[in-house]
């Protein structure tokens, strides 16, 4: 599946009656790397979950390559090309690494597992270990690899580097960069580490209280520390 284009217009969503994401408009062209940054509790995770169909949709449209998906179930959205790696590193703790990967095949060829192992060789070494026996970084690799098995055209990554050792962060960031460089998918990354987020992305969105308050090229915000101080916090780049 080639990289997909995501278009969101006037999106309002949340949990039940509570609206968390408000009036979000965004356009992510095919193959773009987009980072979403912002302080904790500003709606970044809810926005990704909303794109995946895991929250209550109130109004607005979501389109992948021109096809409207805002009413579709998570299953249909996955079939339309969305891949999602949630913040909670959702690996199945009592299944082995290989079984976790097999569970994510959903009709795709088994050879995809070998490709996942090429991207994350560490997982191949651990293929017979259970999910709970993996480190946080390995769980993150596994969750990402499992999402990739479905050959998504748009990959949503929710704070994949949170709480990981610097060496693992580097390994994962390199893998994400490799994925983006392949041009086969559009990647939307929610990230607390502003430095990582800016280094990864072409474009950046800043969210505050469920709304997008700034958007533009990552180099612009990287060069203007006052913007970062204003929206994210003084020490975020260090």
């Amino acid at each position, binding site marked *: 599946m080639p990289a997909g284009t995501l278009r969101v217009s006037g999106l309002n969503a949340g949990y039940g009656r509570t609206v968390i994401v408000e009036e979000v408009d965004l356009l992510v062209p095919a193959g773009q790397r987009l980072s979403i940054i912002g302080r904790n509790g500003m709606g970044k995770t809810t926005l990704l979950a909303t794109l995946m169909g895991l929250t209550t949709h109130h109004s607005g449209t979501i389109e992948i390559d021109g096809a409207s998906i805002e009413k579709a*179930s998570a299953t249909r959205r996955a079939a339309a090309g969305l891949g999602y790696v*949630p913040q909670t590193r959702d690996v199945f703790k009592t*299944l082995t690494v*290989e079984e976790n990967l097999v569970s994510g095949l959903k009709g795709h060829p088994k050879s995809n597992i070998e490709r996942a192992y090429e991207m994350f060789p560490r997982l191949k*070494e651990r293929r017979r270990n259970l999910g709970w026996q993996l480190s946080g970084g390995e769980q993150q690799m596994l969750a990402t690899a499992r999402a990739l098995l479905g050959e998504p055209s748009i990959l949503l990554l929710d704070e994949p580097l949170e709480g990981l050792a610097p060496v693992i962060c580097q390994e994962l960031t390199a893998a994400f960069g490799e994925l983006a460089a392949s041009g086969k998918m559009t990647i939307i990354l929610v990230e607390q580490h502003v430095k990582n987020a800016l280094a990864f992305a072409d474009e950046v969105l800043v969210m505050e209280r469920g709304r997008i308050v700034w958007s533009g090229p990552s180099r612009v915000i990287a060069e203007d520390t006052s913007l970062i101080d204003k929206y994210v916090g003084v020490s975020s780049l260090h």
Partner: protein
Amino acid sequence: MTAITSTRTALPARHGLRDAVGAGVILAVGIGCHYLFPNSLSFLTMILSVSLLVMSLDLVTGVSGVATLGHAVLYGAGAYAAGIASVNGISDPLLLLLIGSLAGLLAGIVSGALILKGHGLPQLVISIALVQLGYEGVNKASAVTGGSDGLAGLSIGPLFGLYQFDLWGRTAFWLALAIVVVVAVLLRILARSPFGMLCKGIRQDPVRVRAMGASSYVTLLKMYAISGVVAGLGGALQAVSTQVVGLDSITFTASAEALVMLIVGGTGTIFGALLGTFVFMWFEHAVSAANPFHWLILVGILLIVVVLFAPRGIYGLGMRLFERKDG
């Protein structure tokens, strides 16, 4: 970070070998029983047909985590469909097994569609209600089902046009043994397929599966349908082998006993379901013959011992000992 750096094998990868060994053991035990207990072939065939019910229950409960106490409704559907077809002129045993499987499929889809709407205790209640409804429905429709008298007068033709279903139950036994071996291996392959792994994922956390973009309900409904085919096949096998279908094939008690057999053998492994059926029914048969007044006490003690000392069932205990010995 607490990485476990060893490459300890948590679950052995030699699945194919295990399947082959398991199939070999089932065949060897079956052949051994045939020659050691030639007068008990009908009872052994009954064990084999009930084992299909218990294996089908393992698919939905052990593999997929669905709580049910009404699985006998699928078994009964297969038994009555085959029985009714037989009294209405269909005598080919393989065709009757197919009819029973299809009836099980239909019952699996209908009951699965309802049971899967609930979770936890409501799920159990719906399953119990379904088996009670099935029981009452069959009882009331006595013109077709024979009601509480059971459905008799089944006429079963020879298998492949060659092997008559004799009084000693030899043909039925070999047929049942062949079916059980094939079904057990197929279900093990199913359980470790991408679909089976997804079901195991749902058992662990349906929300995670949703985030993966899979539908828990649809996936489990498919598993319920497959489970229905297997249970229906078991029921039809019972009808073909005994040539009578009774209300006891569609009771809450039969459902609860199937769950007990599954727990005795071990959940989620398929072979455990088969082992549990064999051990439980054989034990029940032996102790009820030895002590017709207090045998239920002994059955109760067996269950307590298994649950306390082998919480993963007899098969799970055996595998643990084997893996320990294997290093």
